[in-house]
């Protein structure tokens, strides 16, 4: 591990503001030559914003980027690449239908008299890839190789073009165990060559395997930079998830609340490659919290429950009766509601009015011919807007003009309007202002008291602890623990999430 000397690339006091939202707030970050530096954080923590600033895709609103100690301002990623910073993304953005050699030298082919020298390119490509321990036919189409090989080709190209800093943005997300090992060999070689490597992932075990230091961001703020030799997986998870962690005096009040009969039951529901089969029963008046890191299978579990993805096997019953849920329409008919994590993509109808956004699920449930008339729509929209304190000047305004918190409340109102049996909330408080945040937590508690069964996925541990009767922990696409009673505490959850992470691969 190299700590001494000058960082090859450094960010100082970076601030980036999008509208009202501070995506990055005074973040410091430095990578030394010959170092693998992991960058961790949940969705919305600011990882990708920071990377985009380092690679010139965004300009910072405050602070500065230094390259070899000198302040720089990259106009775009190509400019950053010319200065030595190359990036490889999870999705390989090369040309699958051209040869490996062409992909390596595209845009800077060695030419003689304006003609591309195919033989020269191929020889140099072979030589280059041999340096990465890759002996393949460079004349074959890139697309004919596995994703891992394509990733390594992308890395080779990025290093060839830049050569000082390599940003690996979730390079292992679609690789299997052997491929990850191969990728890590390549990373180790590059590290030995003195490159500064920034490694973004949400696999903790991989961080401990390959990285020297880790920087953790949360909600746009720097939480800390640590040498991995000095920390445990539990420390890292705590830094990623904890708020101003007043550990171990979580609100256990909810856990002791009286539960009614079983409302919905999922038995051995699963889908190959997404989530291992899991079983879970939710009672009336119960909130089950779901904890787990990004990519742990928490969202995938919710999608199976709601029929967004079809399950391979398993059964679902509502109040003791078997139901078939193979698409969301059937889930809605069964009285399920789902507030998705990505509000903009899967939640709101931006151009439609607040009123229409609220009544749409009920209307879908009623069908084409039992149309709610305008008075009924106004009444429903008005009632729920008032109950949830939705701040809109007018219920006829397009919902896209509302703040994130109010949009989230509109989606919540949409599901309350169908009088649901069971409600799934995926990160209901992410990216919304403090006031709306409190309102949503209050609403969750109120719905529980009214006898609804809720499943709430959240990375805010303090919050999950405060309103959950039970907590299930997801790790590596499987449900690994179920906590109740006194176990509902941030420290126990963190331990369950971090458990064995070193042993997994």
């Amino acid at each position, binding site marked *: 591990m190299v700590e001494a000397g000058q960082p090859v690339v450094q960010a100082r006091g970076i601030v980036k503001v999008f509208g009202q939202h501070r995506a990055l707030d005074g973040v410091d970050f430095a990578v030394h030559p010959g170092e693998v530096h992991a960058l961790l954080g949940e969705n919305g923590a600011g990882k990708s914003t920071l990377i985009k600033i380092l690679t010139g895709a965004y300009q910072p609103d405050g602070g500065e980027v230094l390259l070899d100690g000198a302040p720089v301002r990259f106009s775009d990623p190509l400019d950053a690449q010319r200065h030595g910073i190359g990036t490889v993304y999870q999705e390989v953005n090369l040309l699958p239908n051209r040869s490996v050699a062409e992909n390596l030298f595209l845009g800077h082919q060695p030419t003689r008299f304006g003609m591309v020298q195919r033989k020269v390119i191929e020889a140099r490509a072979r030589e280059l890839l041999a340096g990465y321990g890759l002996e393949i036919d460079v004349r074959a189409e890139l697309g004919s190789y596995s994703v891992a090989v394509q990733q390594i080709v992308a890395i080779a190209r990025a290093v060839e073009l830049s050569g000082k800093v390599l940003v690996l943005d979730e390079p292992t997300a679609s690789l299997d165990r052997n491929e990850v090992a191969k990728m890590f060999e390549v990373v180790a070689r590059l590290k030995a060559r003195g490159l500064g490597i920034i490694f973004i992932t949400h696999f903790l075990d991989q961080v401990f395997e390959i990285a020297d230091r880790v920087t953790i961001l949360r909600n746009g703020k720097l939480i800390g930079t640590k040498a991995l030799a000095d920390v445990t997986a539990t420390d890292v998870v705590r830094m990623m998830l904890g708020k101003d962690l007043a550990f171990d005096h979580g609100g256990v009040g909810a856990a002791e609340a009286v539960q009614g009969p079983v409302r919905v039951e999922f038995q051995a529901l699963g889908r190959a490659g997404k989530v291992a089969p899991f079983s879970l029963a939710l009672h009336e008046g119960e909130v089950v919290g779901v904890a787990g890191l990004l990519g742990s299978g928490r969202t995938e579990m919710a999608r199976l429950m709601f029929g967004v993805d079809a399950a391979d096997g398993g059964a679902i019953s509502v109040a003791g009766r078997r139901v078939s849920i193979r698409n*969301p329409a059937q889930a809605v008919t069964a009285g399920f509601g789902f507030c998705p994590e990505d509000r903009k993509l899967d939640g709101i*109808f931006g151009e*439609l009015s607040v009123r229409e956004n609220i009544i749409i699920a009920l209307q879908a449930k009623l069908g084409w*011919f039992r149309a709610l008339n305008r008075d009924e729509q106004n009444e429903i929209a008005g009632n729920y807007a008032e109950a949830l304190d939705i701040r809109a000047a007018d219920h006829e305004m397009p919902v896209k003009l509302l703040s994130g918190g109010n949009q989230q409340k509109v989606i919540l109102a949409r599901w309350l309007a169908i009088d649901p049996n069971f409600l799934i909330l995926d990160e209901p408080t992410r990216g919304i202002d403090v006031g709306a945040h409190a309102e949503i937590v209050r609403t969750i508690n109120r719905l529980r008291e009214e006898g609804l069964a809720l499943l709430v996925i959240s990375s805010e541990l303090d919050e999950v602890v405060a309103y959950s009767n039970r907590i299930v922990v997801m790790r590596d696409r499987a449900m690994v623990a179920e906590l109740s009673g006194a176990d509902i505490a941030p420290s126990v959850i963190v331990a369950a999430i971090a458990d064995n992470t070193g042993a997994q691969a």
Partner: protein
Amino acid sequence: MRRGNWRAALLRPQFAALAAVLLINWLLFPGFFDITWQEGRLFGSVIDVLNRGAPVAILAIGMTAVIATKGVDLSVGAVMAIAGAVAAVLVTGGASALVAVAAALAVGVLCGLWNGVLVTYLEIQPIIATLVLMVAGRGLAQLVTEGSIVTFSDPVLIFIGTGSLLGVPMPIVIAAVLAIVATLIVRKTALGLLIEAVGVNRSAARFAGISSGLLLLLVYTFAGFCAATSGLIVAGDIRGADANNAGLWLELDAILAVVIGGTSLLGGRFSIPMSVVGALIIQAMNTGILISGFSPEFNLVVKSGVIILILVLQAPMVAQALRKRFMERISQ
């Protein structure tokens, strides 16, 4: 059009454009607004605009629903040719007019269903999916007519294209009835809202429990039905089925009518009546250029100029700027 907004609706640029085109027509040809009663039906240039505009207006009614779902149907012109060919061949073969009409409409529905299946279940992009039938459809129509123009003298089919009801030419009656019925259906049932929801955000529609597949199937089928109706009118008008030329390029006029009417190609909010207004603007321009004595080649150039003007006026930025100017003038 939404409740209580009639006055605001009449201030829309489309109505101003229609009025302007009609005014120019009147300046070029002072007798433009004259309407006479001859042989038990209305005659006059304005009636002619409505009558000639009816086929595109009918196509535009179906096209509006398709475009509202973020789709497009390029095949409607070809479907017109197929429907006309089917009706003509059946009546010349001795079938009754009723059977011929029903068969033509059924074929239109089948064509629409085909498009809908390609778009919904095979998830082919609408522009490509309907391009298939746009190209193949004319071939099909020619196979039906065996390559010749099939003329007929069946009074019922001819009546559809040239007859009149209470003095109003049949194409106008059919277009008006279709426009009113379609508008009532989408606005009195939940179909309108659900179609808009699917067009605005298909993923969110899925999460909200809307079965978008059935809706898409329905709108493409309806577009096919409208195209067949239009095809019957055109065939009745020329008393024959011309597989090569019936409905040629009319899909583009229909798309244009919808866009002029204010429905975005990105899907979402739609208005069937405004699309009909769009079709009338297009036809009023065509008629104006014809009666003014300019050569028809002018038609395309003038048309594109007017269209650009209408689209610019509709752009949110321009609308905002105009509103600001207007408010400033009031406050002075």
